[in-house]
């Protein structure tokens, strides 16, 4: 067996060149940037047609979007703040996607993560800050991880379609949240908006120094980087990519596909649960129905636009956060209905799904068509 390990090959004459030319690498990499970007432009163009039919100017829209999302320091901070949960909920889609699973129920992990975090914080109030925040994070991640981990386990051991089960589990999660915040965990003082007991000002997650953005943004960015390293640089991630690329090939190699699937889905759920915990700890101060604000669903769009690459999730989440942030301004200035941003997001999503069929069709991005075969 010894001679199958790479280091045993040292001293062996290398027959084929191992380096990849920068041109080839550029061609291969740019496809995953150009196609989603092109799809984004096409989506905006179609949306512009809608606006023209309504007698509105698409140019105004773009101007307002840039202004509302990134026009000044205030709007940039607003966009970043909105991007923070999207980073984590997008990971809840992207990580299982690398294993070939389409999980769309991150919303469920968000709300349960929020409820679990609030429930963990209340009995600990009075303990040191770090203890309470730590307990909240662990509880939130455990709840989210359990929830999406169940989806993965159902998929592997009982062959239940993960897309359907995660969506249905999200509805169950929202019902559970309503039960807890209106029942066992309800603060009697919360009258018209049933909530858990507030965790109190002293235990709130603060802002990044010098910014009006809470630490959730940092947590999200760190989670994206960690996920990228996990997938691209570790043996565990490599095994997951094999299983995602072809489960039969992974089984023939003796890889424990079940553990990979449950592990990755649980980690994905944990990130979404963390998003819920941050929403409670940094924004709401308690768990309530506002947790189900659709971050889980927007995360799906972010992950697909980013081609399930955790590093690409960072700019895409900020872009979508910006569109979200400019929504209010667009509605007011252009006199458009509330659902405008949702329509735009839906359009973008459909165009992105269509663009999936374009991969491998352009000779420019496919060096195998213009490089000469070599032995």
């Amino acid at each position, binding site marked *: 067996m010894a*001679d199958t390990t790479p280091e045993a090959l040292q001293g062996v004459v*290398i027959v084929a060149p*191992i380096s990849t030319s920068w041109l080839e690498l550029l061609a291969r990499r740019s496809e995953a940037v150009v196609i989603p970007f092109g799809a984004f432009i096409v989506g905006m163009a179609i949306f512009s047609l809608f606006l023209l039919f309504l007698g509105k100017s698409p140019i105004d829209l773009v101007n307002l979007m840039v202004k509302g999302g990134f026009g000044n320091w205030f709007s940039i901070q607003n966009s970043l703040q909105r991007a923070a949960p999207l980073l984590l909920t997008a990971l809840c889609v992207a990580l299982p996607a690398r294993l070939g699973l389409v999980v769309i129920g991150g919303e469920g992990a968000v709300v349960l993560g929020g409820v679990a975090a609030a429930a963990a914080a209340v009995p600990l109030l009075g303990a040191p800050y770090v203890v309470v925040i730590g307990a909240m994070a662990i509880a939130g991640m455990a709840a989210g991880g359990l929830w999406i981990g169940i989806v993965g386990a159902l998929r592997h051991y009982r062959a239940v379609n993960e897309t359907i089960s995660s969506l249905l589990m999200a509805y169950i999660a929202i019902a559970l949240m309503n039960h807890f915040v209106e029942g066992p965990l309800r603060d009697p003082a919360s009258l018209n908006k049933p909530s858990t007991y507030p965790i109190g000002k002293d235990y709130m997650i603060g802002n990044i120094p010098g910014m009006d953005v809470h630490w959730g943004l940092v947590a999200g960015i760190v989670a994206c980087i960690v996920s990228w390293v996990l997938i691209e*640089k570790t*043996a565990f991630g490599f095994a997951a990519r094999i299983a995602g690329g072809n489960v039969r*090939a992974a089984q023939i190699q*003796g890889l424990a596909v079940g553990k990979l699937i449950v592990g990755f889905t649980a980690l994905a759920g944990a990130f979404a649960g963390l998003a819920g915990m941050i929403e409670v700890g940094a924004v709401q101060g308690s768990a309530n129905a506002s947790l189900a604000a659709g971050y889980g669903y927007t995360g799906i769009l972010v992950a697909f636009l980013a081609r399930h690459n955790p590093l690409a999730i960072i700019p895409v989440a900020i872009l979508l956060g910006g569109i979200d942030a400019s929504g209010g301004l667009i509605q007011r200035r252009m006199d458009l209905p509330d659902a405008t941003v949702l329509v735009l997001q839906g359009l973008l999503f459909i165009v992105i799904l269509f663009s999936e069929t374009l991969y491998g069709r352009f000779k420019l991005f496919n060096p195998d068509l213009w490089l000469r*075969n070599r*032995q």
Partner: protein
Amino acid sequence: MSINEGSDSSLKTLRSAEAPRKPGAIGLEAAGMTMRFGSFTALDNVSIKVPAGSFHALLGENGAGKSTLVKCIMGFYHPTAGQIVIGGHEVAIDSPRDASALGLGMVYQHFTLVPSLTGAENLVISREHVPGVIDWSVERKALAAFMETMPFKLPLDVPVRSLAAGEKQKLEIVKQLYLGRNFLVLDEPTSVLTPGEASEVLGLVRGMTQRGEITVLMISHKFHEVTAFADEITVLRRGKLAGSGRVKDLTTRDMAGMMIGDVPLAALDSRLAVAPDAKPILSVKALSAPDRSGLKTIRIADLNVRSGEIVGIAGISGNGQKEFVEVLAGQRKKTAGDIRVKAAPYAATRGETRENNVRFIPEEPLQNACAPKMTVAENLAFRTFDVGQGGKPATWIDGRSIKKYAAHLVGAFKVKTASLASPISALSGGNVQRAVLARELTGEVDLLICSNPCFGLDFSAVAEIRARIMKARNAGAAVLLLSEDLDELLELSDRILVMSDGVLVYETPIATANVMTIGEHMAGHH
């Protein structure tokens, strides 16, 4: 006797409505056929002459241009240059519809019948003009009269899925004749048939050509079929005409020479004797597992594969071979029984495969052994990515040593790839299989499990893969070879077993192996 001489009047109406043309075989001549795709020339000035009533074989390796030529003739492609002459007149074939109007028909390698419909229904719906309401009593009568004129007897009233492979292939041919075609292109028509079925079908087709009813152009890989049934051959190599001639003037060696050119084929190592005290490496006892449909069970009572021997398992596709391999590979759960490798229980975990040096060469490697979108280098690293310095489990992926290792394997196994960073799906079938061989046969191999390892591959790839399997055997590996290709089993095996209906029903040492006996057991007579 021709198909158009049926006495039934309704049949005559049907025929004339379809395509009014003369009965009997037609000759075809294609001259100077050239087909370019961008800068790539798939077919370069190829001429072929198929006289009326002849049985012509078109030979060539994968990618030699056989399908391109046939697709030009059938109107699927518009050739860049070249003329087609049918019955002395130059014709323009712009679409498959034109081809069928001229009486040209094609039978594909894989079945194109609708499995849930009966033979009669399949025939009727294949017509170009099917009436909105079908009068089945009239159609049945017409069909019965038509079948009278056929040399094949086929049950037309049962769903096609319950027909045997040979019957389905006959029905495919009957369908072409029913549609009034009198020049048939057969694309590897016997690849899914048993030896008995293959010679029966080809014999009947040959009879029809001899009676002048049809002309046949057959694409084939199998020399014994060509020598037994064809009159003439045309050989293509890399898009060019490599030779042609009458079969009786040529030896198999001549034909192989035309097909592969001057490239020497990998020769099999001579077979070392199996040591009498060779240890059993794989032993399977009282194994049972559900099959694909979940309705049947495969049962392997007792199977041992010893070090240094190749045990071949023959069987018609769908008799449980796939499921058996899946159990051994950890892709399917067994319901009972005992699998041992080197006397220790074996459940196909990564630790066990690695410790016992168990390797797999499955059929259709892209679907079964590769992650198609991952790169060539990554696919070659599947066995080794989690092994670090000194054989310890690795946490981090070392991209550079993965590439270095891949470069070494690509060179050593002559895998043709544009780059190590190409997705493995960009490689040709033979090169994907070479890459899988490189991965699986590097290092010590104690147990090698192969399933149709040469399915769909070209000549030189096949010779090389068989040579490598034999080499592994001679180096002491126990080899379990499941194959639907009897020639392959006879060439490589030390013992041959036959699997039928999920059970091993017959065993013979290679010295006493007889094709007809094996064929009978494959077909369920035991």
